[in-house]
């Protein structure tokens, strides 16, 4: 029989047993839909993490000295800034202090002591006023830039710029307000207060430094520059590589992607279990179908059907059921994704996953349909004709 006629025959048989075919498909539909939905959620989570990491820009290198008795001096930071391919350095220090204005006070607010490059390196925008300048740093001025949440807490709706507040009892002038950014890299910048790096001495800090961001001129040379910075730190501070870390943003992204692909794979694995169950359903129904249609198989053989014709007939039927289930499952999975998105969770369906799901459903039909189809084709025509 011609292949196209075999396909038509399969569709006819599926239509003739709508209920049974539908229930069989359901197994595949649930399997494929959950693969699409879970992988989509996995990818959505991955890309939201990735976008928060890369919001800082790929041209950033993070330097941290973890040793308690070693840190970079001001001059060493300046020297680091003069290294090849380094555009700017932004040392920062996180201090915890009480911020108050009038009767309102916040206990243990995070205060970041920064230089003039910090805001631009971190892509943080100002809503009003100005940022920390050279002059502020030189003079160790008691000025501050306030995060949007903290501004609302202390000043409610009034414009904080030009007003004053107190940090641990010392008076500071607000020179700028940050635009709302949400938390980034584990720092909730919206409820933070930024002061000049040099001003931190008033809060009991020295000018030594153990955390800084380095902005690169050419992001493609990140690896070489990381090595250069590492060498500089090791030479000047005489500490082992366990005591400091120099991480480029791109290597961080790579690490995140690694975690995410593992996560996606795990989700796909879980969903695959339901696909296997669906496949067993296909096999079960095809076996029932073969025994129900034993007589038909006998008649077909008496009319000249070859083994191959019978084999193909049942195999195509199994594949068509699975593929139809797969297509419906893909649509249901995408629909589930839209629903999930409405709940605010990221969802990202890729063409690859859809293609893989489609091919998988066809493969399930082939794999789980081949045993029943073989059984049908191997039936002896007399036995088959004799059956009721």
């Amino acid at each position: 029989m011609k292949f196209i006629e075999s396909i038509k025959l399969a569709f006819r048989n599926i239509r003739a047993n709508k209920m049974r075919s539908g229930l069989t498909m359901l197994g595949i539909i649930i399997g494929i839909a959950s693969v699409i939905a879970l992988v989509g959620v996995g990818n959505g989570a991955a890309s939201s993490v990735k976008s928060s990491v890369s919001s800082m820009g790929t041209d950033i290198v993070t330097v941290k000295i973890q040793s308690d008795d070693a840190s970079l001096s001001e001059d060493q930071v300046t020297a680091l800034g003069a290294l090849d391919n380094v555009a700017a350095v932004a040392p920062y220090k996180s201090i915890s202090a009480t911020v108050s204005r009038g009767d309102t006070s916040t206990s243990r607010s995070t205060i970041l002591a920064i230089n003039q490059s910090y805001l631009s390196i971190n892509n943080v925008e100002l809503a009003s006023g100005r940022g920390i300048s050279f002059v502020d740093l030189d003079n160790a001025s008691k000025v501050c830039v306030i995060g949007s949440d903290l501004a609302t807490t202390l000043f409610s709706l009034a414009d904080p710029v030009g007003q004053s507040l107190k940090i641990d009892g010392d008076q500071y002038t607000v020179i700028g307000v940050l635009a709302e950014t949400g938390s980034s890299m584990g720092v909730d910048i919206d409820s933070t207060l930024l002061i000049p790096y040099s001003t931190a001495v008033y809060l009991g800090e020295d000018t030594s430094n153990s955390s800084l961001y380095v902005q690169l001129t050419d992001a493609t040379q990140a690896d070489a520059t990381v090595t250069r910075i590492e060498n500089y730190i090791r030479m000047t501070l005489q500490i082992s590589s366990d005591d400091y870390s120099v991480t480029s943003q791109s290597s961080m992204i790579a690490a995140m992607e690694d975690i995410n692909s593992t996560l996606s794979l795990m989700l796909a694995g879980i969903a695959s279990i339901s696909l296997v169950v669906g496949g067993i359903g296909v096999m079960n129904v095809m076996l029932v179908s073969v025994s129900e249609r034993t007589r038909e198989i006998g008649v077909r053989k008496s009319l000249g059907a070859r083994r191959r014709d019978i084999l193909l007939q049942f195999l195509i039927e199994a594949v068509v059921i699975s593929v139809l289930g797969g297509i419906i499952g893909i649509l249901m999975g995408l629909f589930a994704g839209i629903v999930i998105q409405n709940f605010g969770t990221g969802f990202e369906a890729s063409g690859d996953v859809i293609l893989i799901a489609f091919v998988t459903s066809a493969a399930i039909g082939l794999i789980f349909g081949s045993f029943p189809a073989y059984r049908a084709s191997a039936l002896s025509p007399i036995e088959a004709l004799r059956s009721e």
Partner: protein
Amino acid sequence: MSENSVTISLQDVSKVYQMGEEQIRALDHVSFDVAKGEYVAIEGPSGSGKSTFMNLVGLLDVCDDGRYLLDGVDVATLSDDQQAAIRNKKIGFIFQNFNLLNKMTALENVEVPLMYQGMDEKRAAQQAAVYLDKVELGSRTDHLPTQLSGGQQQRVAIARALACQPEVILADEPTGALDQKTGSDIMDLLDRLNHEGQTIIVITHDHKVALRARRIAHMMDGHLTMEDRHEIH
């Protein structure tokens, strides 16, 4: 009858079935020739081996001993696929219980053997319609078997058997499931086909049915015991 007009030639054929402890000789050294255009009846009670005879002649089963030449070809030498091709092209089965495919229309049932020849559906439908016309069912092509009477179903089965222009029609109790009148009509149809040159072998336990044939062979306990030759009045 000349040697080269012989279509079916069974030569000393035996078939043994193992039934538990017992061995049953369903066919015991049977030799039998059927020439082109002949109308032969194999008459015998149930269990006489006539179904086994039909299965062997129809290539649904193979003999344990002896030779079966169909159109001069020893069927034992043929592969599975070649045997299927011969069932398709050279043999037309008519069964007692019609054996139509219930979810297909009359036309589609007749199309089935044509499609196994590799014909596409359009051409198969054209040819199937011709044969349904021939059995006077041209107006019922779209009916399902369940919407047809027994006699009409058997006509569909005959059309299906004829569709591939077979060498021989093998009819196994063709009237067994029909009433007297309808059965007689079906036998009239077979008579007519034979007059047109169609080789027919009827297997039956009913002597009245066997009398339609020009030659009757009696089957008993696996032996073909006697042959009557008579002219149809």
